[in-house]
């Protein structure tokens, strides 16, 4: 589904990704973990060309996303992206956030789009908040609306960039629940998160990144068991608990 082949990314003189390779199969869930600045965000942002790369290739469904024939706006509809800061559109209601892409990009009628939007909101447990403005929703509710907004475009892949790290602790659970449900439905996902409980429950594999490279990958049980002598284990120990490292 997604393949990274020797991906190099530079920000000016600073190399943010150094020869990253890896594969995410259809229906798989990968969790990216690593210290702040290790390149996690940069790596998933390359998948929708929010960051361009200087070396290597990123393939989605077998197609090099940098090749000429690729309609990037089409691709982005098929690859959902959930940001740490939600990035809801504050001038639109919850449902308005969701229907914008449906009506303007998909050419769906208003009524149909609203129906679809309501269904997506129901999936994340927010049907009754459809007409609220984002400013009146809690952080957890906003993030769930953001997830619904991505899902409405029928993505084949969902990318999550620390979707719970801006949230108050009591709201983390509701967002993780929505993500778990999504994983259970067979969605292909790459999640940057330090929620190890989530990783153990749904991840097929954890990738541990440091200084722009994937240093270690393996099944959650292998990497996080108390007997494991993994880099991940050391990292988690150094940050005491999974949640605080950004």
């Amino acid at each position: 589904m997604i393949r990274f082949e020797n991906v190099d990314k530079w920000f000016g003189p600073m190399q943010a990704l150094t020869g990253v390779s890896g594969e995410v199969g259809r229906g798989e869930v990968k969790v990216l973990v690593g210290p702040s600045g290790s390149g996690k965000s940069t790596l998933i942002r390359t998948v929708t060309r929010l960051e361009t790369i200087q070396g290597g290739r990123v393939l989605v469904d077998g197609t090099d996303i940098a090749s000429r024939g690729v309609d990037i706006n089409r691709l982005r509809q098929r690859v959902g992206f959930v940001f740490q800061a939600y990035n809801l559109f504050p001038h639109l209601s919850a449902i308005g956030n969701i229907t914008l892409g449906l009506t303007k990009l998909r050419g769906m009628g208003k009524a149909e789009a609203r129906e679809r939007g309501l269904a997506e909101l129901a999936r994340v447990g927010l049907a009754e908040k459809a007409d609220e403005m984002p400013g009146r929703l809690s952080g957890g509710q906003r993030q769930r609306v953001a997830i619904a907004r991505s899902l409405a475009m029928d993505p084949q892949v969902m990318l999550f960039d620390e979707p719970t790290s801006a949230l108050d602790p009591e709201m983390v659970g509701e967002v993780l629940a929505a993500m778990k449900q999504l994983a259970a439905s067979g969605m292909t996902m790459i999640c940057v998160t330090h929620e190890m409980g989530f990783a153990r429950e749904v991840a097929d594999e954890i990738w541990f990144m440091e200084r722009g490279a994937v240093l270690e990958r393996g099944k959650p049980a292998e990497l996080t068991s108390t007997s494991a002598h993994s880099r991940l284990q050391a990292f988690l120990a150094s940050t005491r608990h999974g949640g605080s490292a950004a």
Partner: protein
Amino acid sequence: MGYVFDLRGVLSGQYLDWFVIGVATTLALTCVAWCLAMAMGIILTLIRMIPLPPLGWFVALYVEYHRNVPLLVQILIWYFGVPSLLPRPARQWINAHHGEFLLAAIALGLASAAYIAEDIRSGIRSIPKAQYEAARSIGFGYLGAMGYVVLPQAMRIAIPPLINQTLLLFKNTSLAMAIGVGELTYRTREVESYTFKTFEAFAVATVIYLLISFGIMALGSYSDRRLKLETR
């Protein structure tokens, strides 16, 4: 000095009618010029968004001209200069249809557009890049992201300065008397010269200008409250 302040003289009969016509003309001129200014302001903003340097230069030139040449001069150029460039039938049509009103509206509207374009631009600058990025990541192109996500927010943020521009535009309509548009100031001068009641005539005009300004401000703060973005 024995001057008796008496409003009855200027607020009755024919003079009252002149005031009413004056107010109506001022309001009409404000509305027409305002619509033109908003449309042109948005068009200039959109042009500036296109990443082609010559277009940016054009907008910069437009803005500098309209902000630095006295408005009265701009109005006179439109009134005396522009029609002479037009073919005769167009000129005759303009003269037959209160050309001075139309040309004043164009001059006022285009000048105001320069300021409005600047206000919208600062509004755009204040929208976080993440909003644009979120729109792109849903699949919107550059123009879609700007048009559906960035610009609507920028316009809301720009409401307070836009109210200011509206007030300025409203007050500047009085300059149109210079080319014979029968707006409030023009009519006031007329009443004054017929009645010699200078203070009364201008007192009436002053109060009317104030009331309408307050009305615009009230309307503006109402829409600001209605449309204000609740930021995170």
